[in-house]
């Protein structure tokens, strides 16, 4: 076996490594730019954050090299213990964590502090890979689906208990991995439906949402009915009716009429022996309608005004005071927008210095890209990410071992979530949930854990001719 392992060892994927290195370099330059002020070179030059990040880049590369020296089999063998250790840290931090602005997510060792939720991401990926890579385990079995969901949900709930909702949401991206590995699509569709309805219920009153939901149910049911009448005519009549009813705010009569229609269609489906479909669609409509009511109720009566405000900043910015809660996001958008096509030039930014933009070196580092490098630079960074993500997907698909493939999809999902939500939030597309931009944001703990995440993948990939069991 040892001989074969030697033969199976290939070099690390240099394309992925170069893309990683490119992002890290861009990140360092941006951190340098944030700290740099034209008149005070002696203060900021190499001191402060740029210097500290430089050291962390060194440490991260060192850690990457160490990981490539570890046998690939190690990660397979110790996937569960690593996961266990990750959970242990997540529990520890609940008791011994340092509380920073309302969340208890940092373990402080004096000289070094880190977030166990970062280690938890890798541990969960490994565990998921270990579980799904096991012979005879398939997501066709309900039990396996449950266990796989549990593997993701457990650390997610622990992170949520720390009060760090942003990081907890990151774990939900791992359901993408389960989708790739054969999880049926219905839960995903329902999940998306529930999310959309839930979010919509924060903004709109429940009845119009229910009307839309019932309309969807009618369309779905009608398209599944075998009949001589062309149902498209029915739909052509319903769409303008809905629009007119909505316009004159006659939503309650509409809702009643559509409910009757849905029940009728369900009856027809039952006659055609399609009861499960009718139950599914009808059930979903009822559950979603209930969600529309409860979501609206929760938003208006349970949430504190500052929590409502935070949601409004994302969903209904026009309702927020421009110099109040909206201020940070406005500053961030201003900074990015002011870059124009080509940007103001490296070190020439003015808004991403002196804290005009919040968290300008960490979560809002993309503002500096936008301001100093303009649209071209922003596009460059987005494309770098996209290339890296696709490269990881290519790596994933070329594996012989399901273990590595699952792990690779996990890495890609986590990176994508961070990338999309972080950049999205700087531009007001996504709610501000305070997660860093991988490889670019300032912060040793974040850089190191993302590097380890990548390094394990590259190490596993270099042994892709091996099949783990």
């Amino acid at each position: 076996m040892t001989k074969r392992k030697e033969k199976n060892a290939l070099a690390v994927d240099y394309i992925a490594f170069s893309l990683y290195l490119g992002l890290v370099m861009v990140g360092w330059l941006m951190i340098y730019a944030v700290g740099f002020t034209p008149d005070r070179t002696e203060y900021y030059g190499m001191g402060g954050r740029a210097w500290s990040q430089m050291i962390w880049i060194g440490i991260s590369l060192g850690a990457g090299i160490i990981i490539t020296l570890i046998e690939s089999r190690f990660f397979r063998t110790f996937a569960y213990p690593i996961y266990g250790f990750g959970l242990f840290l997540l529990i520890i931090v609940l008791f011994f964590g340092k509380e920073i602005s309302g969340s208890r997510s940092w373990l402080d060792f004096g000289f070094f502090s880190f977030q166990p939720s970062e280690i938890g991401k890798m541990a969960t990926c490994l565990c998921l890979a270990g579980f799904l890579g096991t012979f005879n385990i398939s997501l066709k079995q309900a039990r396996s689906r449950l266990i796989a969901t549990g593997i993701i949900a457990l650390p997610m709930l622990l992170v949520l208990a720390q009060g760090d909702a942003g990081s907890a949401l990151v774990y939900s991206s791992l359901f993408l991995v389960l989708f790739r590995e054969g999880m049926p699509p219905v839960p995903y569709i329902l999940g998306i439906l529930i999310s959309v309805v839930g979010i919509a219920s924060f903004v709109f009153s429940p009845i119009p949402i229910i009307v839309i939901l019932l309309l969807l149910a009618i369309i779905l049911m009608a398209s599944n009915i075998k009949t001589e009448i062309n149902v498209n005519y029915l739909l052509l009549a319903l769409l303008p009716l809905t629009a007119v009813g909505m316009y004159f705010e006659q939503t309650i009569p509409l809702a009643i009429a559509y409910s009757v229609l849905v029940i009728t269609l369900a009856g027809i489906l039952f006659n055609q022996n399609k009861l499960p479909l009718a139950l599914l669609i009808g059930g979903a409509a009822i559950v979603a309608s209930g969600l529309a009511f409860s979501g609206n109720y929760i938003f208006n009566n349970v949430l504190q005004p500052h929590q409502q405000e935070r949601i409004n900043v994302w969903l209904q910015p026009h309702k927020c005071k421009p110099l109040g809660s909206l201020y940070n996001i406005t500053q961030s958008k201003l900074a990015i927008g002011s870059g124009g096509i080509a940007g103001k030039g490296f070190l020439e930014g003015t808004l991403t210095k002196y804290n005009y933009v919040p968290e300008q070196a960490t979560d809002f580092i993309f503002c500096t890209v936008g301001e100093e490098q303009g649209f071209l630079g922003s596009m460059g960074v987005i494309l770098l990410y996209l290339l890296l993500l696709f490269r990881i997907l290519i790596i994933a698909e070329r594996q012989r071992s399901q273990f590595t493939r699952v792990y690779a999809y996990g890495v890609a999902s986590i990176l994508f979530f961070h990338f999309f939500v972080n950049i999205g939030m700087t531009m007001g597309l996504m709610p501000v949930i305070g997660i860093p931009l991988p490889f670019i944001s300032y912060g040793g703990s974040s850089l190191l854990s993302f590097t380890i995440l990548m390094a394990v993948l590259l190490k596993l990939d270099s042994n892709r001719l091996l099949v783990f069991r």
Partner: protein
Amino acid sequence: MAEQDNYNERRYVIQILFLLGALILLAKCFQLQIIDTTYQAKASSNVIQKITEYPSRGMIYDRNDSLLVYNNAMYDLWVTYNQVEEMDTTKFCTLLNITKEDFKKNLNKDWSDIRYAKWKPFIFLKRIDKVTFARFQESLYEFPGFYGQLRNVRGYRYSAGAHVLGYINEVTPQQIKDSIDIYERGDYVGANGLERAYEKDLRGIKGERYVLRNNFGLVQGKYKEGVRDETATSGRDIKTTIDINLQMYAEALMKNKRGSVVAIEPSTGEVLTFVSSPNYDPRVLTINRQRPKAFAELLADPLKPFFNRALMAEYPPGSIFKPILALVAMEQGELNAGTPYACKGYYEYNDLRVGCHAHTYTYNVQTAIQHSCNNYFCIVLRSVIDKYGFSNPQEGLDTLVNYLDAFGLGHPLGIDLPSELGGNIPTSDYYDRIYPETKGGWRSPGIISIGIGQGELLLTPLQIANLAAIIANRGSYYTPHLIKEFKEEEFLIPEEYRIPKRVPIDPIHFEAVVDGMERVVTSGTAQIAQLGYKNISVCGKTGTSENPHGDDHSVFFAFAPKHNPKIALAVYVENSGFGARYAAPISSLVIEKYLTGNIAEHRKYLEQQMLNANILIDRKKLASFQ
């Protein structure tokens, strides 16, 4: 061997998701950075700025509630270099009444200097008066990057009292360093007088506001709805002990003379009048564009108007020391009120001879003070110094020094003004150093000049006025002070001004001295100080302090009325000859004015004479000496 993979096509879903995500971000970037140009315009404009709200500085009132010092509006013009755009500099300079060179100099700072930065607002032009700024403000919108900051500067109702009131100055770098988050560059701080002594009460607490400005420097609104704003707290108003009418009168009398007038209310230690002449008009030092020039001129004036003679000029007291010596000698038992010493026109000891003048027989302390007999007090001094033996003058002198210390001599009294000096009282150590035992040492005749208030003895006018108050009170006194009260009653003036002190002299001994001082005015050396009111008898003592550099200084200290005194004062007029010539008349006029409110008809001539007297050496002549 490939593993079973039935969901291979699902990778496309994920790829499409990733692609879609990136495209959404790109589209949003495109919208923010390219389509929507308002962001580029807005970004350069909306800048948060901290605006300091300056508290209004506490006002100063006189003892009768006349407002002396108030606040005037004035503006500083600030600029943020990065926000300045093409503009009509000619119009700008004309409006502000500055030259283009000034403009360039004020705008282009040394950017390597830590104090300036292109992104940070700095003061472009200080001290713009209300009228100029109002005119400029109408056109402010044409000059992006500039904005005005309201400042309070001092205004003065009266031209008198400059040395008491002091002035404010821009804070020095050292003061900023020493204070903990109190001062910032460009703040004004009390630099002298009461302004400095009560700085921490007068200054108040600064507030701050955060505002958003557009690129025209105009305030767009509050930052974060003003949650971080703090309003300023005004400084405390203070009431000084000065009587501004008396102060103005005394200053008028001291015009064209060098010297000082310090008047104290004996029962409280409150300073009624505090004149150092030559002085200046406090209004000259109000903060405006002309101020630096005016300040420099005052500094360069050879008459040294900034020099506070009442606190810092140390003169030999001359004959006014005699009553004090008499008190100490009586307390020590070396002198009785009735002890006579005949005077033959001089004091003599071996070869030593101290001259006296012709006067009648001094048969007791009263008459000795009345005639200011040098012989009498030389004998008294020797008896005090030789109390512990002729060869042990050290102990005698040090005992005397201890008494003088209790009289507030030889050290600053602790008045609430900066830079007070303490004068000089020679101790035995001092003489031991000059006349070491190895060279024969020193004995009482060697320091005989102390007996007549000359020699190494140095007193400030304030100390002399305080001596008058001590005698007026028959031994007790309050440390002289200029703070009467804070306008807000919950604040008390410092404790040292509320607790009376006592000199270790039996009150009985004061009667002889007070009688003697009354005789000085009724039938002695200062009859000119007589007011002519039956119920107001002035008690005083003239002195002439020898001046090796020119004419002697004329000094007079007095209190009135004799019983239940209302005012005690010291007047020093430099280079004016003996005490009765200027110091005594000026004292009597100040006393009369304070006690009766005007000057009796028969003394108007004296008032005119004093008001008109000019004994200053010509400024030009003085300048040529230097």
